[in-house]
């Protein structure tokens, strides 16, 4: 198999793109249309089974599950963007800085990084929620902070590789500043690595939001969130398993999609894989 064929036909990439696309299209569509108001309580429609009126049925408040899943997709994408944004915007420059700074300073930054890495992400988010109030944004900033070390590590290892290339040595001997080298040479060359890491972190953020909402520290009610839908279904698990199944499948699709997309992108961009081929 040639490299070109492998690149264009990676099934992970396409399946991942398809699943992520489904989530994105659903989220965008929910801005224009949902079958019912996802937060409207209607006692008369309580716990209806799936049917023509309500595709996935209704929950114990009489709210349409399908509409909630649609709007919940927005929450899912929002948390991913915030968490990955925070992690990538802090982690990547930090990693590049650690690679380019004097050795002792770089080592110091990375050891502090290891300390943050040792702290469980969910616990950090719960603490943030308890102190600053439970909220999607608070929770995702916490998850983002907890994901900073993984970005810093990837960026540093990538940057160290770039730093030893001849064109960087040439730039340095020509007297270009460190900042200019970082922006001009290092960042473009590690972009692929950061994108791969982003898609994996995205999946982790989606799962974290679900877990936090499940524990009552995530998205505020009644804003639809797949994690909270799962939590609300908990006491009805024995009576109405459908209520857990619907958001559970949605979470699985989104996480699988982002993970496959990450795998596919790695096949494309990871320089180490190319060398092996």
């Amino acid at each position: 198999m040639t490299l070109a064929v492998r690149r264009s036909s990676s099934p992970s990439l396409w399946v991942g793109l398809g699943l992520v696309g489904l989530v994105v299209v659903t989220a965008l569509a929910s801005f224009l249309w949902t079958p019912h108001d996802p937060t409207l309580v209607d006692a008369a429609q309580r716990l209806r089974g799936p049917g023509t009126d309500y595709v996935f049925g209704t929950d114990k408040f009489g709210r349409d599950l399908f509409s909630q899943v649609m709007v919940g997709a927005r929450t899912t994408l929002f948390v991913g963007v915030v968490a990955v944004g925070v992690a990538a915007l802090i982690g990547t420059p930090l990693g590049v800085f650690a690679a380019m700074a004097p050795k002792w300073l770089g080592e110091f930054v990375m050891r502090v990084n290891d300390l943050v890495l040792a702290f469980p992400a969910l616990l950090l988010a719960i603490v943030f929620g308890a102190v600053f109030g439970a909220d999607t944004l608070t929770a995702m900033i916490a998850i983002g902070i907890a994901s900073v070390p993984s970005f810093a590590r990837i960026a540093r290892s990538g940057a160290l590789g770039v730093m030893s290339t001849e064109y960087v040595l040439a730039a340095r001997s020509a007297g270009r500043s460190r900042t200019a080298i970082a922006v001009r040479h290092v960042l473009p060359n590690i972009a692929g690595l950061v994108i791969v890491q982003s898609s994996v972190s995205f999946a982790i953020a989606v799962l974290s939001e679900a877990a936090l909402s499940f524990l009552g520290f995530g998205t505020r009610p009644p804003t639809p969130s797949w994690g909270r839908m799962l939590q609300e279904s908990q006491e009805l698990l024995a009576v109405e398993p459908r209520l857990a199944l619907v958001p559970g499948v949605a979470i699985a699709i989104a996480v699988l999609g982002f993970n496959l997309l990450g795998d596919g992108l790695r096949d494309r961009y990871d320089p180490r894989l190319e060398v092996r081929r």
Partner: protein
Amino acid sequence: MKRISLFLAALLVAGCSAGSTASAPRDPNAITIGFSAEPANFDFTRTDGTAIPQALLYNVYEGLVKLDENGQVKPLLAESWRVSPDRLSYEFSLRANASFSNGSPFTADNVKFSIERVKTTWGISQKSKMDVVSRVEVLAPTKVRVTLSRPSNNWLFDMTTRVGAMFSPDGVADLPNNPVGTGPYDVAARNRGSSITLKANPRYWGPKPAYETVYLRYFKDSTALNNALLSNGIDVVSAVAAPDSMPQFENDTRFNVTQGITNGEVVLSFNGRKAPLNDVRVRRALTQGIDRRVLLDTAWAGRGELIGSMVPRTDPWYTDLTGVNAYNPENAKKLLAEAGQQNLNLRLRIPNLPYAVTSAQVVKSELNKIGVGVSIEPLDFPAVWLKSVFTEHDFDMSIIQHVEPRDITTFGNTKYYWGYDSPKVRRLLAEGDRGSPEQQVTAMREVAATLADDAAACWLFLFPNLIAAKKKVGGLPLNQISEAFDLTILRRAGS
């Protein structure tokens, strides 16, 4: 600094375990009961909250009188009592054969010691219930006279709560860890974060309890508590906190299920200290904008009762006030327009407890229909909610269950978190306490009606007492209206 300490406290709490999982011991003389809130220690004289008296009152500690499940005051350590015609002095005849679990006999001296100790040493707000006592005299080892500074109907009732518990001077050295009472049980062991073991007190003066050993097990999560019963880990769920899960017990022949009432009024409280909720038209509009039948049906599976004021059915001054400020969305909109509040946005700051989170979503949906915007903010309970809403009054509306018996009197306290201030209600409450029992009923009925008309709060529903238990357990209390989970009324089914 405060924020840092809160941060550290949250870390500590987050690190704690989620509850017990082991299965129930198979001793036929033992029973295991599952609860959701664990006592922080055993000292209810200095620690607030309902978890400690729930475990210890009537079981380890006893008072002169107790409250039965129909709200009647019954003799306990006092065999009988006589009230003077001016209703200022109470003469109690005490049981001669009662003793404390450490062997000290129970005498009139202990009554004097215990009542005076509430006034001098107790550290919780409920100690003020004893302020009305001016003198305690020991007449004989089994005779004691309590003199009040003014007639008070509430005092004898309050003696059924924790402030009436009897202590021995040689048993109060280590109350947080070693409670010494006259009750049918003694604390045998404590496994912090998981369980408390009670053993029958061999010196008990009354009938032997049906179960020699009682394990009180604590579960933070309502589903875990339910599952413990389904998987044979416990014998009784003291209060099913997930009402939608009741059918799984009702449809299972292994279990008995009872549904009664509690003292817990689930209240949508309004912050009457500030605009716009200091305007009675706005409060009436919000109350009339919420269909409380729909709320009860959706948020709590229709289990519970609708109440129109702060009075459960078991109080003598109960009248049905659900028709006052009843659901009328059209009128609600008119009232808002009259008050000039058509673009109202309110913060609903609630504890992150299941009943509050589910009720809040219905409240929001209902109020949106009359054009009122609501943003729900769940706060960590108890720490953050108590600090922010209860103490600092930083809220527009909140939802909380008020569980203390006869807590309608809190509307007479202008410093209370909802800041309700009505001279008429304060006067009626004082008159009711001072007057004859008949006058009290009349006055309290008027208090309840005034609060309902004033929409001092919106009473969403009365919390149900849902108990699920194995068939072998009998004598389960139908209603839960005292502070105690009374173990003495339990028996073996068929006996």
